[in-house]
């Protein structure tokens, strides 16, 4: 079917053929948009996002160094005045919190990229191409996860430099990194969903305003035990807190105490929360993406 359609060849005003590439012939290899294109197309989309980093090294550097700056700021500026319930070094307490914060801030990266594409019509361009439709999102996901992993590596370096250590072996440390990236993966779908809802990169400021309290209203910077009762409960039940607490447990860092059920079940909850977020926001994102066609 694909081979039977004659494709006119556009020519220059001079009459020289311009399309020396036989485009429909290239497509004849398989149904356009077929499933077997899902992976190659996703890789092409991933490389597009990687090319962004190459072309904007300053932005990438700022993005990677901003959380490092926060670690230093909180570690040294406030760290001296902080006493942890249950004892322990504040900076060792802070670093796993900052890892999780970096994952949370990743939501803004996702939001900015997806909403810019949607607002500029680039998403529609992709949707008009014979590519696998899923690749638009999977390419984004792979690139964002790579960026998150790179960001985490930089943060680990900064943590080590200020005296943070994983105390319980590389295996448990890797498990903790896995949980952090799982959180980032879950937040990816929140970012995509929000971006498809508002379709306006200018709303990034609003997202930042939402993300900041979400990050601070957790156990990342201070132990919920030191907060007023209700606030401590909210902070402890913040999904971010479970990942942070699980990280502290797996790294063997001070955990700032915490007798609540949620604090006692940090590691399983650090799996449950992200899966719950995915279960809600993945279908919402897919539905929203499909609704672009309605």
């Amino acid at each position, binding site marked *: 079917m694909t081979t039977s*359609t004659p494709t*006119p*060849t*556009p020519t220059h005003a001079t009459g020289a053929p311009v*399309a020396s*590439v036989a*485009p429909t012939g290239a497509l004849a290899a398989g149904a356009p948009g077929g499933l077997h294109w899902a992976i190659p197309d996703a890789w092409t989309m991933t490389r597009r996002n990687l*090319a962004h980093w190459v*072309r904007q090294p300053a932005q990438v550097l700022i993005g990677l160094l901003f959380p490092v700056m926060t670690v230093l700021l909180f570690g040294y500026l406030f760290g001296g005045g902080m006493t942890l319930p249950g004892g322990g070094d504040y900076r060792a307490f802070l670093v796993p919190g900052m890892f999780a914060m970096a994952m949370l801030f990743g939501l803004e990266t996702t939001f900015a990229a997806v909403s810019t594409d949607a607002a500029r019509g680039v998403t529609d361009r992709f949707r008009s*191409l014979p590519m696998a439709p899923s690749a638009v999102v999977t390419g984004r996901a792979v690139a964002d996860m790579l960026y998150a992993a790179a960001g985490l590596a930089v943060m680990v370096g900064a943590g080590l430099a200020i005296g943070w250590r994983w105390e319980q072996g590389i295996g448990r440390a890797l498990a903790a990194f896995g949980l952090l990236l799982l959180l980032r993966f879950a937040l990816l779908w929140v970012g995509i969903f929000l971006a498809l809802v508002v379709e306006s990169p200018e709303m990034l400021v609003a997202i930042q305003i939402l993300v900041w309290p979400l990050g601070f209203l957790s156990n990342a910077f201070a132990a919920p035990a030191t907060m007023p009762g209700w606030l401590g409960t909210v902070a402890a039940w913040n999904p971010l807190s479970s990942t942070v607490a699980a990280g502290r447990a797996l790294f063997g860092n001070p955990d700032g105490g915490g007798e609540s059920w949620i604090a006692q079940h940090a590691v399983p909850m650090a799996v449950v929360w992200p899966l719950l977020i995915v279960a809600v926001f993945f279908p919402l994102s897919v539905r929203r993406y499909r609704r672009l066609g309605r």
Partner: protein
Amino acid sequence: MDATRPTVVAEGLCKRYGGKEALAGLDLTVPAGAVCAVLGPNGAGKTTAVRILATLLRPDGGRAEVAGFDVVRQGPEVRARIGLVGQQAAVDEILSGRQNLELFGRLSHLGARAAAHRADELLARFGLADTGAKAVKGYSGGMRRRLDLAAGLILAPVVLFLDEPTTGLDPRGRNEVWASIRELVGSGTTVVLTTQYLEEADRLADTICVIDAGRAIARGTPDELKNAIGGDRIAIVVREAADVAGAARVIERIASGPVEVDPDRRRLGAPVADRMAALTETVRALAEAGIETEDIALRRPTLDEVFFSLTANDGSKLWTPARPDREEAA
């Protein structure tokens, strides 16, 4: 595919957003290789129509076929044969022009080498070879649109959809884009172009489909549309605003149709049957009435006048001028 079959066929396309009817039974037929301008004011449904034909939007009713494939059931087949240039330059700002074209080429499943080769060809063709390595962020509006056009041509499409390709461009950018589109014409690519600029439709299109409130209200060649509202017109500008009414009474006797009056600009216009006789008669009659004029001219109607006379009438009545040699084989 049957060679005589039109490349784009839309029958009774309907689309509503909430309670608002964007398309209310649009019919559109574009023969292979033709340039069809879909002309209408903002909100007429032009973009909705293009988005449905380009498989970006599902119609609520009716059917459409592009290059022989149904836009709803055979979306992937349609997408492999179309190029779309939307209202804004839908290109990646951070990447270079070349990277953009290579990206779209790869996503259209050209191999790496073919995509690179195609990108080079298109950059050269659209006068972007020198700036191909620079980030699109630094491009002018006209350059962006040309890159966007190039991106729409990655696959040497059977049908190219251009949705208001010059909206928001300065006159220089507009001329650049027009030149690029004209170059495509005659290459065999069928072009469907939406525009709210009558001049644009007049310059680029073989056939024009005038749409208003979601349906076609007229179609034909630019000349057919102009003839349809009554051939030549006489246009007068009087010197004194007080003379407008008097001049209108004079011209009424000479004109073959209703006299249009623009009192603010002291302007009068009317269709006339016999152009030279009408001109001399008008000059004589106005002089006799003691009305001074700044300008008297005979001219063909502009598409603006065609458009306004069509939309001012009952828009629901489909009006088609005679097309002896252009009857589309449906």
